[in-house]
């Protein structure tokens, strides 16, 4: 059992907003198991159930109405942008959340990790098998290549918690496999994975090694 400070704690989180005078409960009193370094946690649910809203709450894209989210024991609303995003990186189905389409592959890596040496950037490009696309704009890459680039950005930034919001849902099986291999590699390097996916095989495989699955329905974790 890992008794270290949890990397992510979600306690009784609710997100409400008003629409046409009605209060919509996007998240209703949601809590998950504490997520510790190097673990996997899965989240499933139908469209509109609140999965992405939970990730938006973690990345402070939406304000929470009640409850708390802690990163390494600190309330995320007390952290600066730099402190929060040094540890967290979100990759979703939309590649614009994690890469800049109008920058080249190399420039994307420089943009996300400006202090890295030229050699480290070059190695990262080779590692992600994008050497032939080094000077290509990210928007001209295939969906799979762009997600590989995003994962490489997470690796270079030494992300502690990787939030994956169905990043491989639109990819062909070969690219999905490549992406998952890179996620596994990141996890072996100590990165904690919080994964929204409908890949039951992956979930079952990880549940064997102690990972947990939460299901969200109508804003409630059941």
């Amino acid at each position, binding site marked *: 059992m890992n008794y270290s400070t949890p990397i992510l704690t979600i306690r009784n989180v609710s997100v409400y907003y008003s629409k046409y005078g009605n209060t919509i409960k996007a998240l209703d009193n949601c809590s998950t198991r504490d997520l510790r370094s190097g673990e996997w946690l899965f989240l499933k649910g139908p469209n509109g159930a609140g999965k992405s809203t939970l990730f938006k709450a973690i990345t402070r894209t939406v304000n929470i109405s009640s409850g708390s989210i802690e990163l390494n024991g600190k309330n995320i609303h007390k952290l600066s*942008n*730099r402190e929060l995003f*040094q540890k967290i990186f979100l990759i979703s189905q939309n590649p*614009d959340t994690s*890469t800049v*389409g*109008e920058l080249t592959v190399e420039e994307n890596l420089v943009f996300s990790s400006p202090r890295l040496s030229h050699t480290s950037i070059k190695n990262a490009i080779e590692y992600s098998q994008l050497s032939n696309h080094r000077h290509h704009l990210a928007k001209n890459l295939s969906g799979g290549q762009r997600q590989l680039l995003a994962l490489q950005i997470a690796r270079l930034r030494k992300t502690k918690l990787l939030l994956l919001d169905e990043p491989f849902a639109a990819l062909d099986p070969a690219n999905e496999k490549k992406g998952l291999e890179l996620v596994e590699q990141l996890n072996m390097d100590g990165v904690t994975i919080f994964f929204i996916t409908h890949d039951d095989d992956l979930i079952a495989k990880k549940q064997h090694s102690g990972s947990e699955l939460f299901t969200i329905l109508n804003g409630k974790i059941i």
Partner: protein
Amino acid sequence: MILSQILENGFTQGLIFSLVVMSLSLSYRLLKFPDISIEGTFALSAAVFGVLVSNNNSFIIAATAALISCVVMGSMTAMLHHYLRINKFLSGILIVTASYSIIARVIGGSNVSLLDFNLSVQGLFLWILIAVGLSVTAFLFYHSVKGIQIRGSALNPELSRSLGYKTGGLLIAGLSFNNIFAGMSGIMFATDAGFSDLKIGQGILITALAALSIGEAIVPQRKVSLLLYCILSSFIGSIAYQILWAAALQFDIRPSDLKLLSALIVIALFLIRKKKDTGDEL
């Protein structure tokens, strides 16, 4: 006027205005910020330069002071938009409006003459040197780490914030840098024309838009990077537009009709672009 004169005049004027076109293009295409404050920057820079030079200051000192005023104009536009959440267009309009009062105070009269000011080198040679030098500077700057950060932040502010960047600071840096080009254009224009006044900035935005529209129709976007596309289309478009303009002036056009002619050229270009259906808006 014979053809060679039309070409020479068009080339010289095209070089002078190419930098204000580049300023517009870099802000709009590269940073997705239609910065119309360049109209005020162009005139303010010419005014500051003109007043200092007419008071016997050197070209370098006068140009440096004028370019500092451009940086202030660019940064103010960015600050209005970022910190006060004022619409991008309105931020530019506010700065242009304010700049007329500032220019009137700087000049202190109706105009300032630069006829006594003589460059030690031939004008055209200096304009080529400045235009090429500044283009290379823009190219190197936007490929540096800071330049990539400015571009990335402008193109994807949400990601930029999630990477811990302060997007406001980067926008201020970007627009300040880009406004230097508009200011340099103003300095070149005032030197070439031999005067500076309150009205020299009027219509510059339309001129720059027309030139950029021509340039973008000529330069094949898919064969060059976006940055190179901005630089090349500014140069080529500006020179082509000024040659067209010089040719149009051969017909007996009343001076008061020149603005109408300018607007008609822009509309004609948009019609041509619409037929080509590039899918891009300018």
